[in-house]
């Protein structure tokens, strides 16, 4: 812990931002794109969002039905495991509380799944209580495909890989099942404030 990099001064965070930036992160104005494969092009007329309970009951919305649900606008800070954080990002979407309202479940975990095969796991408690959305607008405009459009999960209190792009649905489960990056050595939970980047952190 006492190691010092000879000659390193560093560029500090702006004072006001310091307590909003988790350890090991730096603030960027950019919106970097990180994906493991090509960007899928999904037309809203083919878009569906599906909740699958642990009893295999399914609840599906198409784009129009989804747009009928109450929208919320949120301004949040986001933190990517590749070290950048972005403050005060503005999103519009449907709260997971709204989506889960009519669902009978005692599951404790969820696996979000996306077009292209991406998955990520989260405790269900991290998706409820005003902490998570399925977002389709970013900074007042439709979310662009490379950032996960038409719609992505938004779970800003966890590292951003948990905010699955091109989200198709949620599978509710009794047991935790590691998603894509979680199977490649990334942390099972991913709390940026505890710097849970990789397995064992």
């Amino acid at each position, binding site marked *: 812990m006492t*190691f010092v990099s000879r000659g390193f001064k560093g560029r*500090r965070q702006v004072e006001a931002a310091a307590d909003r930036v988790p350890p090991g992160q730096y603030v960027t104005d950019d919106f970097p794109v990180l994906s493991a494969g090509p960007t899928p092009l999904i037309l809203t007329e083919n878009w569906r969002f599906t909740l699958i309970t642990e009893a295999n009951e399914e609840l599906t919305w198409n784009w129009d039905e989804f747009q009928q649900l109450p929208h919320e606008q949120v301004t949040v800070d986001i933190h990517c495991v590749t070290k950048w954080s972005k403050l005060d990002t503005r999103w519009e979407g449907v709260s997971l509380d709204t989506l889960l309202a009519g669902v009978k479940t005692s599951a404790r975990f969820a696996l979000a799944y996306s077009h292209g095969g991406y998955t990520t796991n989260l405790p269900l408690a991290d998706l409820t209580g005003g902490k998570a959305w399925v977002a389709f607008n970013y900074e007042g405009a439709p979310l662009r495909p490379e950032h996960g459009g038409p719609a992505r999960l938004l779970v800003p209190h966890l590292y951003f890989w948990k905010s699955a792009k091109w989200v198709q649905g949620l599978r509710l489960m009794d047991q935790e099942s590691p998603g894509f990056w979680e199977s490649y050595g990334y942390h099972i939970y991913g709390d940026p404030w505890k710097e849970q980047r990789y397995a064992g952190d």
Partner: protein
Amino acid sequence: MERTAVRGRLSWLLADVVELIPETPRVKSIRLRVPGWTGHLPGQHVDLRLTAEDGYQAQRSYSIANPPEGENVTITVELVDNGEVSSYVHEELRVGDRIELRGPIGGYFVWEPARGGPLQLVGGGSGLVPLMAMARSLGGAAVPARMLVSARTQEDLIYRQELSRLPTEIPDLRVDYTLTRSQPDGWKGYARRVDRAMLGETTFDSGQNPQIFVCGPTGFVESVATILRELGHPPERIRTERFGPTGG
């Protein structure tokens, strides 16, 4: 003591800076010896951590440029204007210094000869780094491999001499080039941004079912990956890595 090495836990290691190699005016390779390194696969990266006297720290990710070779880890760093970590690496770091890192990180954007071929690499700018680890591991593997390399100018082309030598040492490897900004006299490669025609002419076609790795600035990766899909490659055969921000 055995038990402290919990499986999967990535501890910070102190690496020795062994050699600094200028690749281009804005890019340097840093050869590190990392006591305690457990090995890596081509395509993986490390996290570097710099610590100031008052405890302030900065971390960034860098791809590993060399194939597995014991405790040796080489990274290649492009100088970003006002970049906190890249400018330290370029302007301050010397042979004999030590630097903290941990890894290897990432398990999807990886390839090793045992995975077979054909292997298709498409790299832009410093996006060449993880692809070079793959190309350097080809050796006598007899895996058909092709690499399409994009740089702004010949001077900006990293690993230039090694790249021109590799195909003479590895007959199964073909390397094609494009220089997007300016070309030297007598240039025989392409002279434009990577496009559909170029990918059609230089890369394995979808019938050969190559495993494809694309790395570079975001715009480059977005466009190359999209064209490759249009050329019939299934998305799960196209693995991408973007060095973010919007990239150069």
